[in-house]
């Protein structure tokens, strides 16, 4: 018997005493936090709680806000269709990991922001780029539009497409491995700069 057949047979034998005629009790999953008037403010406050840099700007002021977020002379990589003019930025066309390691910063859009948990979700569409570009550089400037912010985790799960790779980001890279104290800055970007377009 193959391992597959044997494991499935063991599972079935283990469940032989389960009475299939009795359906398991339906337990509703509680709803998340409602959106409310303070949705965007709550999002910004919770992102800031993770010690991310949080700024807001207007659609017209976006390009300048992005430039202001980048240190002078920084080597910047951007996804193919960011839609924001970043002077001097390298457009990712399949850069190697070593190339990305030589970049100081990356600018991406996002798919969703979650207010309750201060989370940004990337689904790595054309304005966000493949997963590696928002991971290897040390500074991640992430642009979130006001209408992308949802209230809570259930809203996000319902909107996201699991067929795409997803990266949920809540603050900069961090660890609690030393005496269970949170320290920002391990392998992912040590600085997360969130720009909310009002």
């Amino acid at each position, binding site marked *: 018997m193959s*391992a*597959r057949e*044997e*494991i*499935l047979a*063991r*599972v079935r*034998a*283990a*469940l032989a*005493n*389960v009475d299939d005629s009795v359906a*398991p*009790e339906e*337990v*509703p*999953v*509680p*709803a998340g936090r409602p959106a409310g008037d303070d949705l965007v403010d709550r999002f910004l406050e*919770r992102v800031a709680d993770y010690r991310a840099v949080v700024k807001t700007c207007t659609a017209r002021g976006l390009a300048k806000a992005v430039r202001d977020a980048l240190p002078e002379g920084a080597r910047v990589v951007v996804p193919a269709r960011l839609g924001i003019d970043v002077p001097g930025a390298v457009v990712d066309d*399949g850069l190697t*990991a070593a190339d990305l*390691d030589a970049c100081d910063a990356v600018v991406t859009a996002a798919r969703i922001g979650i207010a*309750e*948990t*201060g*989370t940004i979700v990337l689904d*790595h569409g054309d304005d966000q780029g*493949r*997963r*590696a570009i928002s*991971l*290897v550089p040390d500074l991640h400037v992430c642009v979130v539009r006001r209408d992308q912010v949802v209230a809570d*985790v*259930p809203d996000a*799960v*319902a909107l996201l497409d*699991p*067929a795409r*790779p*997803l*990266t*949920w*980001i*809540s*603050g900069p890279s961090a*660890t*609690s*491995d*030393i*005496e*269970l*104290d*949170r*320290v920002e*800055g*391990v*392998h*992912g*970007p040590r600085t997360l700069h969130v720009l909310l377009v009002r």
Partner: protein
Amino acid sequence: MNTPRRSPLRSERRGDPEKTSGTFVGMPAFPEAASEALLDPQLRHNLSHATGTIRAKRSNVVAELPEWEDLRLAGAAVKDATLRSLDTHLLRLEEQLTANGATVHWARDAAEACAIVAEVARSHGADEVVKVKSMATQEIGLNEALEAEGIAAWETDLAELIVQLGDDLPSHILVPAIHRNRAEIREIFRTRMAAAGRPAPDDLTDDPAALAGAARAHLREKFLRAKVAVSGANFAVAETGTLVVVESEGNGRMCLTLPEVLVSVVGIEKVLPTWASLDPMLRLLPRSSTGERMNPYTSTWSGVTPGDGPREVHVVLLDNGRTNALADQVGRQALRCIRCSACLNVCPVYERTGGHAYGSVYPGPIGAILNPLLKGVGNDPQTDSLPYASSLCGACFEVCPVRIDIPEVLVHLRSQVVDAHRGDRRPSGESLAMKGAAYTFSDARRLERAEKASSLAGRVLERFGRTRLPGGRAAAGRLPGPGAAWTGARDLPAPPRESFRAWWRRTSGGTSGGRSGGTP
């Protein structure tokens, strides 16, 4: 201190200490290991500081959610419903993963799973792999198995790195180096990093940020060059063929994204039925685990994505005793576990002994039930000792995000351990005592004689005993012979000087006065 402190428990290993951690093989049973651990004041200080910190963080973020108890019910129900038809969900998962371009393997046990991973690495000519922290790969001893094949397995989680460099053993599910403080970690990095790759900077301090920075620099070169990565998964969604890894540092993202080949070892109980069922889990896990509203990074991937991440994706579905646990009607709830480690952090036993005393990669209350369920009882004294490593206070059940009734399973497993040893050629002291009690209690005259003997012992102790309980009642401090083990950590109250039946006779059922001859 000049050398990293080693746990007095771990056996010295030969071979290349820079590459692998020790193993739990040959660990003593819990009571012995626990008494040794309790002699280490530094360990107790580190543990009490760390668990105290995490308990406070958890209770703050859990208190933010008024729906928390309903979420726990929902989380438990999702896992229970999935386990009820696990075969169906596993087949669905396999079908979806395959459709998404992943290769699915099945592994009956640890050896089979390790062989699959080694074969994948070998087929790509890799002599090293980078690893995301994963309980499943620790459980199967993957690092040691790969080392035997000449493949170096680099742990990339900070705590796992500390354990690996220190040639140490993990002592916590979430923070395997919880038993180390910052000064010890600095010492390990300074003395051991150079042999494994990029050395620690000369001016390394014990500031946690500086230590994290040293780990970042040390591992970056490994991330950039690795061809093969190995991960586990926190969840595997059957409906969509999606794996989920929940992490903090970004080492997970590095491993899941940069190498060309990714192998994920996933316990068969990790399956979730639908994409939507991920929602309660992602609300329960981070708050229970690190005490955060959300962990820094969660990655999900469904097989291969052209132009993004690994070009070859393997998933190893692992049994290794899980079907044993599933067959146990009381114990199967342990398979709901999402490895948050909240039960460790609240456990009064864990807080004092630490994780090594449990002799397994799964320590604490969940380890005390999971190990016997996976391995079976009656085969090994170490495993059989674990269901007793608890005061049954119930704190673990209170905090469990998927409501595993750990005390219930502990008591159930204790009865299994007793049953498994009924036919032993050398009966235990406990079973002899129980047999003696049954003999005495089954006959009124025998009971009366025993009562007389016991009241005599009571009088002697009242007069000559030196140990007094709070309130003044005499007690036996430490009994000789077979009672020594029991009284080693407990006081045995002196028996009453008069039995109930004797008192009843003397006072005509309490009507003719007379002071009680029992406790003053």
